[in-house]
């Protein structure tokens, strides 16, 4: 058992200054959401899509923190132990996620928004839309509500149990490491649960916005995006905490490993991004290409910028050994990539919502019945990519802040959600020791060397 004693503060102090700053951020978010509601169309699609975008993004980050902590527990990993409280505190944001996702699910249940075309049963049955009728066993308001509440609730339950055991180990850990053995059992149950349920939730929450379209890589792709964002948040929060004099035990060796995860999973994300694109490009089936055609035509800057920020930047900057060990370069990349993945989610959600809103307002023929267009277009000219980009210019007049590009209201909403995330993170973090006591892997973590 460890006898490690540190001179540095054992607990994070959540100051009034922190609270004020974060409450101002949250207030900004609330004001921006309110203003979005005011300037919105009759269905408030910008409001609801912003709420969905940020709720999904930050819920996913909380989930991934819990997921990766469980992976480390199961893998007998010791390097992370010294700062495992950071991931425990991040995962407690699942409570916030549960609240927001339940609100969205309830409003969808009561047909209060038009985020999802499949929720509009009357419309697609009347159109004899066989694709949506075929998917209705999974894409319906009951399953959406039940899955959201049950799965996010279960994630929260497991992470609360693991965190409570971890904290109980501080005060009455024993030589047989009984707390750790229990944590292993919870983590072993949690991982397969997350594996299947996160994919189901990604299909429901995000992929079903483009209800006719599907991609078997989408769940992995979104999960990787969450994962990289979570790593970026971890790095930034550790740099902040170290700057405030906490965590002298967290050395460059730990930060280096986190940097490697940002680097590696940025490449993994790119691999999925490209594979999803290339399979659809190669097969050239109209039902599938329509997803990318929409994004080529109306979102060219974000579409290619996404790849630039989330692949080229971390790949070339973090390739070197020393850039992963310097707080400046790593913190810069983590900050930019964090925003980059937020934009990635913008690209997953906004185009589909714009189409669904258009459809719900009575603009038929633009989506449901017009699937042949993409294929015909690419096949005829034999150079689909270049042609589609060229098309972007023709659609330039359709450039709308909040729909085709994040506007100030989106940015303010994001700051609001981020402030709330940090508020919960700080409050939970201040409740327990920063460096755990009696964890069997603590010594290993303190001497971590890469």
């Amino acid at each position, binding site marked *: 058992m460890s006898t490690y004693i540190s001179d540095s503060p054992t607990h994070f102090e959540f100051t009034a200054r922190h609270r004020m700053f974060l409450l101002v951020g949250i207030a900004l978010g609330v004001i921006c959401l309110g203003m979005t509601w005011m300037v919105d169309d009759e269905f408030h699609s910008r409001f609801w899509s912003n709420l969905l975008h940020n709720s999904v993004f930050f819920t996913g980050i909380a989930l991934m923190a819990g997921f990766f902590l469980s992976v480390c527990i199961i893998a007998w990993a010791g390097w992370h132990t010294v700062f495992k409280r950071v991931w425990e505190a991040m995962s407690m944001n699942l409570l916030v996620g549960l609240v927001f996702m339940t609100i969205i699910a309830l409003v969808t249940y009561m047909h209060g928004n038009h985020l999802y075309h499949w929720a509009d049963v009357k419309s697609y049955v009347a159109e004899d839309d066989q694709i949506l009728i075929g998917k209705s066993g999974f894409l319906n308001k009951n399953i959406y509500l039940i899955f959201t509440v049950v799965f996010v609730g279960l994630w929260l339950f497991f992470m609360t149990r693991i965190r409570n055991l971890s904290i109980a180990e501080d005060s009455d850990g024993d030589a047989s490491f009984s707390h750790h053995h229990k944590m292993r059992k919870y983590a072993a149950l949690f991982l397969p649960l997350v594996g299947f349920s996160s994919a189901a939730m990604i299909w429901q929450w995000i992929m079903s916005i483009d209800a006719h379209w599907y991609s078997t890589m989408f769940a992995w792709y979104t999960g990787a995006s969450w994962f990289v964002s979570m790593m970026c948040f971890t790095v930034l929060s550790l740099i902040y905490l170290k700057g405030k004099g906490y965590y002298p035990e967290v050395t460059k060796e730990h930060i280096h490993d986190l940097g490697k995860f940002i680097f590696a999973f940025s490449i993994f994300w790119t691999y999925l991004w*490209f594979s999803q694109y*290339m399979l659809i490009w*190669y097969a050239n089936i109209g039902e599938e290409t329509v997803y990318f055609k929409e994004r080529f035509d109306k979102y060219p800057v974000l579409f290619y910028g996404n790849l630039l920020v989330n692949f080229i930047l971390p790949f070339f900057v973090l390739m070197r050994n020393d850039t992963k060990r310097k707080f400046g370069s790593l913190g810069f990349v983590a900050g930019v990539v964090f925003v980059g993945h937020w934009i990635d989610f913008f690209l997953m959600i906004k185009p589909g919502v714009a189409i669904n809103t258009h459809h719900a307002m009575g603009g038929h023929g633009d989506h449901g019945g017009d699937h042949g267009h993409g294929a015909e277009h690419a096949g005829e000219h034999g150079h689909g990519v270049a042609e589609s980009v060229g098309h972007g210019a023709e659609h330039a007049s359709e450039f709308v802040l909040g729909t085709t590009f994040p506007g100030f209201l989106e940015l303010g909403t994001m700051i609001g959600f981020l402030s709330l995330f940090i508020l919960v993170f700080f409050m939970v973090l201040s409740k327990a020791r920063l460096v755990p006591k009696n964890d069997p892997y603590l010594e290993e973590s303190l001497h971590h060397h890469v």
Partner: protein
Amino acid sequence: MAGKQITYGLYNDETDMMAAVKHANSKHLEIMDVFSPFPVHGLDPLLGLSESRLHIAGFVYGLLGTLTAFLGMTWIFTKDWPIVFGGKPYWSVPAFIPITFELTVLFAAVGMTFTFYILCGLGPGVTNKVLDDRITDDKFCIAFDETEVGRGEAESFFNSTGATEVHSKVL
């Protein structure tokens, strides 16, 4: 090439060996090399070894692979033998990416392996002389070049730092 006269001591434990390296540094004894059956954390800075530059070579090899694959395919499919595949344009960048990736990895991996072998003097049919067979098994070794550190000085150093065996050898 005439061999070097080397005095070396064997230690049972890497912590003894590390302490001895620190002791040698404080007495300004020029260590020729240290041998251990496994990588010892924290040894490199003590010996003043700079970071390996093998990865720079790896980057260059990788870049060479990228260019070979991408420019090669571009030439083949646009100039040398243009064929239409599935109605796609001749210059179909997405289709080139997987092969470009593969050749990047191949060039980097093979190039680095060969560079490493050449730098270490390894390869098929090469028999390298070793100071002591047990340094690949369970012994930790510090070696001095006799022209830098005299035998008497080395032996007293080994005795004072807990070496279990001291030998001298021409290599």
